[in-house]
């Protein structure tokens, strides 16, 4: 049978392409456009080349914010991933408590970022907040508005409270998909609980954990609402992350060129780190010497 070869299939991709163009490519290209030009208003633009990029990459302000982001994301991942796995492991696999646990775990995910921020902002206040008042009563000095460490701790707790459930739900989905025979075989092989986790549960959760790590990294690296609601980036610049700085620069100072250059660098960093996570985690359990395989 003769199969016709032509390029008509491209027409099938066209609707998606148009949608993606409107939602992503065109806005992104606008930012690219701003990043290589300078403007003084009146819709007048002057070619600036790589000037803004050079400025951003040499600015202390950028690198300070950048390091804060890295520290924040790393802390979040180190806490949320193991904690999520432990909670998922201790959840019942069957019975009447399953739906109860699942609903309980989903609740934080349903709350919008700014509401979570407001909840903790009020909760932590020493004058009217339960937590702040209680800590004060215990004699522990806690004030996120004046102490940078307290502000950091509060934001981290907020994120852990808000997003650990996501890791729990993903891990749980991975866990319940493991066939019973694996556990039975492991018992017969005399495997300890730790070995069951290490050689059965963890490898079977690998895929969902990758998704969890990627989602949590991207999301935490773009953290904005929580520090914004809590202290607006303060005290001082202690919680001024890239996103907060970016908004200040673009909307506060109307430095559209540097802001555009900065958002592009920001975007590329998120993309690059996500790619690194993806590559490392998918190759973790592949055969080491792929070259010497013969069949």
């Amino acid at each position: 049978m003769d199969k016709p070869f032509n390029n008509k299939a491209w027409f099938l991709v066209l609707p998606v392409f148009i949608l993606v163009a409107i939602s992503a490519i065109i806005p992104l290209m606008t930012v690219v456009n701003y990043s290589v030009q300078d403007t003084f208003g009146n819709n007048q633009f002057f070619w600036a080349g790589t000037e803004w990029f050079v400025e951003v990459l040499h600015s202390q302000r950028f690198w300070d914010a950048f390091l804060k982001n890295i520290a924040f994301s790393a802390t979040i991942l180190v806490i949320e991933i193991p904690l999520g796995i432990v909670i998922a492991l201790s959840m019942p696999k069957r019975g009447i408590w399953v739906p109860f646990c699942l609903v309980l775990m989903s609740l934080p995910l349903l709350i919008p970022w700014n509401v979570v921020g407001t909840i903790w902002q009020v909760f932590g206040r020493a004058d009217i907040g339960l937590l702040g008042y209680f800590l004060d009563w215990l004699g522990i000095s806690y004030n996120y508005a004046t102490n940078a460490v307290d502000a950091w701790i509060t934001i981290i707790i907020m994120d852990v409270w808000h997003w650990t459930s996501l890791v729990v739900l993903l891990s749980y989905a991975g866990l319940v998909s493991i066939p019973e025979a694996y556990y039975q075989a492991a018992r017969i092989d005399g495997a300890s609980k730790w070995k069951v986790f290490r050689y059965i549960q963890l490898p079977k959760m690998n895929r969902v954990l990758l998704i969890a790590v990627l989602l949590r990294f991207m999301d935490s690296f773009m953290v904005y609402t929580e520090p914004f609601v809590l202290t607006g980036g303060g005290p001082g610049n202690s919680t001024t992350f890239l996103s907060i700085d970016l908004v200040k620069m673009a909307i506060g100072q109307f430095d559209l060129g540097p802001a555009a250059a900065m958002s592009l660098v920001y975007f590329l960093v998120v993309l690059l780190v996500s790619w690194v996570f993806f590559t490392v985690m998918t190759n973790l359990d592949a055969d080491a010497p792929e070259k010497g395989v013969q069949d």
Partner: protein
Amino acid sequence: MAKITLEKLAHSYFPYPKSEADFALKEINHVWDDGGAYALLGPSGCGKTTLLNIISGLLTPSTGNIIFGDQNVTRLQPEQRDIAQVFQFPVIYDTMTVAENLAFPLINRQVPKDEISRRVAEMIDILDLGAKANRKAKGLTADEKQKISLGRGLVRHDVNAILFDEPLTVIDPHMKWQLRTKLKDLHRQFEHTMIYVTHDQTEALTFADKVVVMYEGEVVQIGTPEELFDRPAHTFVGYFIGSPGMNVVPADVQGQTAQIGNYKVALTKSYGDLNGNIELGIRPEFVKISEDTKGMPIQITAVEDIGRYKIIRATVDGKPLDAVMPEGESVPTHPTALLDSSKINIYKDSHLVRVEA
């Protein structure tokens, strides 16, 4: 290694079983010889997997005991029973290589290192996995994975029995044959007691020395393949084993004659006067179709030519009767059926009536 004694063993999945029907496994008493190859054969839901899981210790029976040699293991955990089990779907440890998979049960049992590497090397050799010893087990084919599952049992020298739960279900047909032969070889070589659960009669009959046929939670017959073919103890065994299955026709039996409709068949034994639901069982292989006027008149409803022989689907007195006709013979126009008297079995309420000749 040890013989396995099942003593008044029964199991119900209900905590307080009320009637016979609540039992997934009805009471059985049996001794299985050390080093035997047994097959548990029966349709889905007949209790064969329940029985297997009781033997392996994944399930604790409601009543009765299970004894390996002299040791009562009823309350012991699977890992304390020294058994191996191969499951329906291959279970392998994805992140380990083939060799590491095989070493895993030995490492868990604190076998010395040099002993482990010696036994693993030996097992890789036996299973023909040499070329893949250091590959991750994840990328292998289903039959290779199933070999590894089996190897993890064989590599231990202390196993009392190796249990198989429909291990060839996911294997390609042409590999099934090879793997079954391999199993047979390994059984001869290691002389482990092997218990093989299947619903496929070919698998059961080719693998086992003794086949345990189960039906609705009950062991209806334990016997060699030959016994199951010639003297099925229950009409179910007759149906289930053989292709096509045994003919079971209602009949009146008095002394040495059986009457089907208006037709009388001489029997080789005297059964006296039987009451109840009496049926005559004969395998299609022993029903001869001809035009002989001494035969029982039949109506042929279908002829299935399957190459080496033909299967004749017919009715007698409205009841179905199958026969096997050798290749080359043609179907007569006024067919009658002759039953081989020596191969006839008589059943009362589905159970074989045993009388001395």
